[in-house]
């Protein structure tokens, strides 16, 4: 089994629409076999970035690299892409149109049909192969859309809001499919509003705001960024912590306080002073991605 090793890199990517800079000097890397979440508010520039990666929009500055060299149309033809605005042929049978899309990506008709059938069966659509897309429920149309992006064993995946409109079961089967690809070393970039999902799935994260990168890195890197926070409880009142040197109190609520500690030995000294006051809790806080996201986009 040959493991894929190519990574997808975006370097100083810039795009303007008139006076507005939609994407401003964006740089990040999607590592092989890693799932990278692309988060940001509406209008942050996620879709524009993805469309530039896929060559649907012209790049105004910077470049997209695949396997360390400038990306070509042939590279992109092997990618899987799910645009933000969903779209397939409403009036064509689902197997037929998936076969067509597979053929356009260089598969033989037979391979494309076999692969599409296999994936649709996996999504529970095995008995609807001949049905027109428009006769399917929205969730099922979404499944067909996903199949369209995965059909040709893509070398990289660029998915714009792939999970929106999916029920939890469908999210799970989609994640299974994505994991299959990840194991083969395929880099996956996907955008989402659902931070809990991103938290659950992503190896790394790119946070975009107003066209600029606010944070990028692996989950661990991002979580260890900034000062470590602790939760401390000394009933009945934790107010005394405000006067301790090297301690920055983020929040006090009765017996509980959230702290940041500065300087060597602060933690040991603090514990020494807290125990006589009836310390009941001392917990390092691991920030959730939601916290990080809120923090960096504040």
């Amino acid at each position: 089994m040959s493991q894929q090793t190519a990574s997808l890199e975006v370097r100083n990517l810039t795009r303007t629409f008139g006076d507005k800079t939609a994407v401003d000097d964006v740089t990040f890397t999607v590592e092989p076999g890693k799932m990278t979440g692309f988060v940001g508010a509406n209008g942050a520039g996620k879709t524009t970035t993805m469309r530039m990666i896929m060559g649907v929009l012209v790049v105004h500055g910077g470049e997209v690299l695949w396997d360390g060299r400038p990306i070509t149309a042939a590279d992109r033809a092997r990618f899987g892409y799910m645009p933000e605005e969903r779209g397939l042929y409403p009036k064509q049978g689902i197997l037929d149109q998936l076969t067509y899309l597979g053929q356009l990506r260089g598969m033989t008709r037979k391979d494309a049909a076999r692969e599409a059938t296999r994936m649709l069966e996996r999504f529970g659509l095995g008995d609807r192969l001949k049905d027109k897309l428009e006769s399917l429920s929205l969730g099922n149309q979404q499944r067909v859309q996903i199949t369209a992006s995965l059909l040709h064993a893509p070398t990289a995946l660029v998915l714009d809001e792939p999970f929106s409109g999916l029920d939890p079961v469908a999210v799970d089967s989609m994640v299974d499919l994505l994991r299959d690809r990840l194991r083969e070393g395929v880099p996956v970039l996907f955008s989402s509003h659902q931070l809990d999902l991103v938290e659950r799935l992503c190896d790394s994260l790119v946070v975009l705001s107003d066209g600029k990168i606010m944070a990028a890195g692996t989950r661990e890197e991002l979580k260890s960024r900034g000062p470590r926070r602790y939760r401390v409880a000394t009933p009945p009142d934790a107010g005394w912590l405000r006067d301790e040197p090297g301690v920055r109190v983020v929040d006090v609520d009765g017996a509980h306080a959230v702290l940041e500690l500065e300087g060597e030995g602060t933690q040991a000294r603090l514990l020494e002073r807290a125990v006589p006051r009836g310390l009941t809790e001392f917990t390092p806080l691991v920030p959730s991605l939601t916290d990080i996201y809120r923090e960096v986009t504040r």
Partner: protein
Amino acid sequence: MSTSTSTTAPTGAPTPAPEDTHAPAAAPGVVKNPWLVVTTREVVVKLTDRNFIVSTLVTLALIIVGVGASAYFGNRTADHTVAVVSTEATAVVDASQAIVGADDSGDTVTAQEVADEDAARQAVRDGDADAALLDTGEGWVIVGDEEVDSGLAGALTDTLAASVLEANATEAGTTTAELMAGSEVTTELLTGDEGQAGLRYAAGTIFAFLFYFSAIIFGMAIANSVLEEKQNRVVEILATAIPVRQLLYGKVLGNSILAFGQIAIYAIVALVAVNITGVASDLGWLLGASGWFIVFFVGGFTALAAVWAVLGSLASRSEDLQSNTGPITTVIMAALFVGLLADGMWLTIASYVPIVSSVAMPIRVLDGSVPVWEPLVSLAVTVVTAYLLLRLGEKVYQRAVMQGGTALTWRQALKLEV
């Protein structure tokens, strides 16, 4: 590059479905002839479209019924019965058979002797006889009920005139032949022969309408197929797989093949039907012109196809198509009317104007006497136009088809960034 197997999937993998043990077939990535894949889809989708099949079959049925009907009415034989009182009248009626039956139509005329004039009139009134031929003493009268069949009346009149002339001539001591000597008139046509003129006109009309309907029906099909992809954003996926202009080529070719195929089937069925029923014998001249018509149809249609595709890409909803297809419909309509109305120099000029020439040149070929280089030159003009329109169309289409939102004009689209 990478081929993949799932047989060495690392631990922690979700249990795969039993049939999932084979590898997904790795795509070579770049399809060799993307336009061919697109063309095939266009054709297959249309050929499996029930509306398309039904409308084609209905048209074929109409063609067959039309040819059959004209054969039936053309071949129907009439058997006339003429009520007579005198033996002279009987002789005239019998003699008129020669004229009535002269055109190989199988028509007959028989005399039915009755007692007197009143009985003859009564027979006509009752429908027992088609007409009555009565001698009034000063001349003859043909009695009909509501009307007298013009063929029958003509035959009786001619026969009567001849027999009266013959009698008078004998009385004057001469013969009809002597009296008529030198008065014979025959018609000589320099090009073609009589009977084809009508057919020529009919064929020209059919060419004009076929072009009109096919150009509009298949043109709208192209525009709608482009719009469908734009509206549903499929084009964004397609654009990442193949160059957008390949999509355009495929669509133009696919729909041109469909239009051509449909026209060819209509033509073949019509010609076969015409031959079987014997409506028109010796159709060699029609075949030649039909061949030119099909060649010109393909040229004219291809030139228009790129324009239709652009119109589809400029629209954002199907309502937009109704307004922005106005000019092209006008051009096609012009081709129709030129085909129906133009004559002489105007027709000659029209036969060199691209698209309009698709109707005008075959009509000139129908008239005969067009040297073969003329259609060839005109065809070359059309091909060049088609090429230029395709290149311009490609530029507009590439820009417009990715642009959602509002409907665009050609000018706006050309200003867009790719």
